[in-house]
């Protein structure tokens, strides 16, 4: 990301210098050549013309092409504004650092709703414009002042059907029961989802999880520590299961279907007691694209965009109309389908927004 950014700025400053007569034409062309850029496209209009685009900050992998095909194409057709990507992953610290430095390069971040709570409080985000974005096109309670949930992802677990031929594990209580279901397990190493799973395994009702009793969850997690390994990224979780390192693995639920196909059905996804996480679009304060980003978010809420994101990335839609239109065969893998909704627990972004540091540090202290 930094390389592209640096080159873009170098070119913009070169263009300004050239127009002001401070740089020779040959030097400017050489600069454009080095940056691999056609000089015409840099000079077109004013040097500031590059600001009329929307930059989405997401997580790389397939998300770039999926967001482009699901939202970008329709958005560009409607408004004429192109969609660009920064795939370095918008973690809270990076967003805070970017806004603090005063040099904001992203318009919308594909982050979590608890980021909206935490960063909104400290003034690092723009408030969303709900005259453009529709509050009703998402799950109840997931349209907040500084962020709105566009998709849901979730934590669920997969188990090895060959390891447990008679009696498959069906809930987090089974996941945390090493006596009845021996074998290695994997959990998410940054507390999110793992704490809720431990509490549900300890008998807490899925609707009464929040505020989380961190100590109780930590006790449960420490109990199976000897049999657990921890992952930090989706691909690590994927590898641990596909390479047979664990008999039961917590995963991000949207990867469930691909793992099932890759292992020829040997590993099955359990959606019971899955924890639904609201993925949210948030806007860093002082974003370069201005108010156009609100139209982008509104486009992301449309039914075709929602269904496309599900087909491409496996991320569950939040728009009730899109949920209603989902195909039969996809429903088991969608958190918000009629069959799954009664079984899942919904994450509380406000609690996480306020307590991330305590929860994550307590978890790390317990597992290390």
């Amino acid at each position, binding site marked *: 990301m930094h390389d592209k950014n640096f080159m873009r700025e170098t070119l913009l400053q070169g263009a300004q210098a050239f127009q002001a007569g401070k740089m020779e034409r040959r030097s400017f062309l050489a600069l454009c050549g080095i940056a691999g850029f056609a000089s015409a496209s840099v000079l077109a209009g004013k040097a500031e013309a590059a600001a009329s685009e929307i930059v989405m900050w997401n997580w790389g992998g397939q998300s770039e092409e999926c967001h482009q095909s699901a939202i970008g194409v329709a958005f560009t057709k409607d408004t004429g504004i192109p969609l660009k990507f920064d795939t370095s992953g918008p973690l809270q610290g990076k967003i805070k650092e970017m806004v603090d430095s005063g040099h904001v390069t992203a318009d919308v971040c594909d982050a979590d709703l608890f980021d909206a709570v935490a960063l909104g409080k400290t003034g690092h985000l723009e408030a969303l414009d709900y005259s453009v974005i529709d509050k009703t096109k998402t799950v109840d309670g997931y349209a907040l002042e500084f962020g709105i949930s566009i998709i849901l992802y979730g934590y669920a677990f997969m188990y090895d059907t060959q390891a447990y031929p008679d009696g498959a594990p069906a809930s987090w209580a089974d996941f945390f029961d090493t006596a009845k279901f021996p074998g290695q397990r994997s959990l998410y190493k940054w507390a999110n989802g793992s704490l809720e799973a431990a509490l549900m395994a300890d008998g807490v009702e899925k609707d009464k999880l929040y505020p989380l009793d961190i100590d109780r969850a930590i006790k449960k997690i420490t109990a199976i520590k000897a049999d657990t390994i921890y992952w930090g990224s989706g691909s690590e979780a994927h590898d641990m299961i596909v390479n047979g*390192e664990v008999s039961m693995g917590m995963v991000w639920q949207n990867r469930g279907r691909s793992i099932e196909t890759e292992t020829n059905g040997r590993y099955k996804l359990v959606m019971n007691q899955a924890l639904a996480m609201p993925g949210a679009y948030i806007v860093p304060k002082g974003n370069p694209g201005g108010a156009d980003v609100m139209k982008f978010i509104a486009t992301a809420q449309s039914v075709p965009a929602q269904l496309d994101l599900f087909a491409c990335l496996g991320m569950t839609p939040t728009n009730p109309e899109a949920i209603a239109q989902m195909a039969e065969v996809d429903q088991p893998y969608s958190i918000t389908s009629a069959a799954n909704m009664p079984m899942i627990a919904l994450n509380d972004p406000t609690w996480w927004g306020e307590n991330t540091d305590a929860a994550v540090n307590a978890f790390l202290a317990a597992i290390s």
Partner: protein
Amino acid sequence: MRLPIKSGWLLVLPFLLLVGGLFLGPILNVLWISVTDPAPGFGNYAQLGSSDTLRRILWTTLRVCVICTAFSVILGYSIAYAMVHATGPAQSRMVGLLLISFWISVLVRTFSWLMLLGRNGVVNSGLEALGIITAPIAFMRNELGVLIGMVHYMVPYAVLPIFAAMQSIDARVVQASRSLGGSGAQTFWRIYLPLTKPGVVAASLVVFIINLGFYVIPAVLGGGKVLMVAEYISVQVLITLQWGTAAMLAAILLFGVLALMFIMSRFMKLSTVFGGART
């Protein structure tokens, strides 16, 4: 006009100031954050006394780094010894192989180790097929895996300073020792090894300092259970936004390394480590 300093320094001074400023600026910024975030004072440093977690993480880091340095230097010494005593094309081949290993990315190495020594990896499957073991040996996703991965990564860094030191030893010194009646073992322990001391010290310093900052290998090969300082700092900066704690830990690492070099300078002339003369 006689200047109090050599005129050469005046030419270099602007550049020196620029580099010094750009280098020291961010370091001073981090030190500043460590005493001002979230509240001014030494509260972050006081956490070292009160927080069990921080002490444990620092201890884990120290322990893993010391063990890794020891094994890397020992293995590096053997490899350098073999390289010095090889001749011509054989030596060039060895140097070539060593350099190629530098160019392998850390992620490729990490996943290769997982594939070799993982639960269903080549080694475990082979041993199980031969009937030698019934359950897979846990090489990976624990501290052993981290040590294997780190030593593998650091051995080339250890070889080079030791190789350079060994090359400067006159072969006739060894012959003189033998001709005066010293056995092979005596010659090695009393003559050869002390002569290579600057190289060994340089290698240990380099390997230890690089080890302190290791992130990827412990994160992946440790299965999340071997939490080292670098990863913890990263989590505090990116996820929990406790920048004061992160800056404090980074400062501790910096002071630790400086203290280490100070202690070593008490025992030997440190400039020999960086290529200076022995006397």
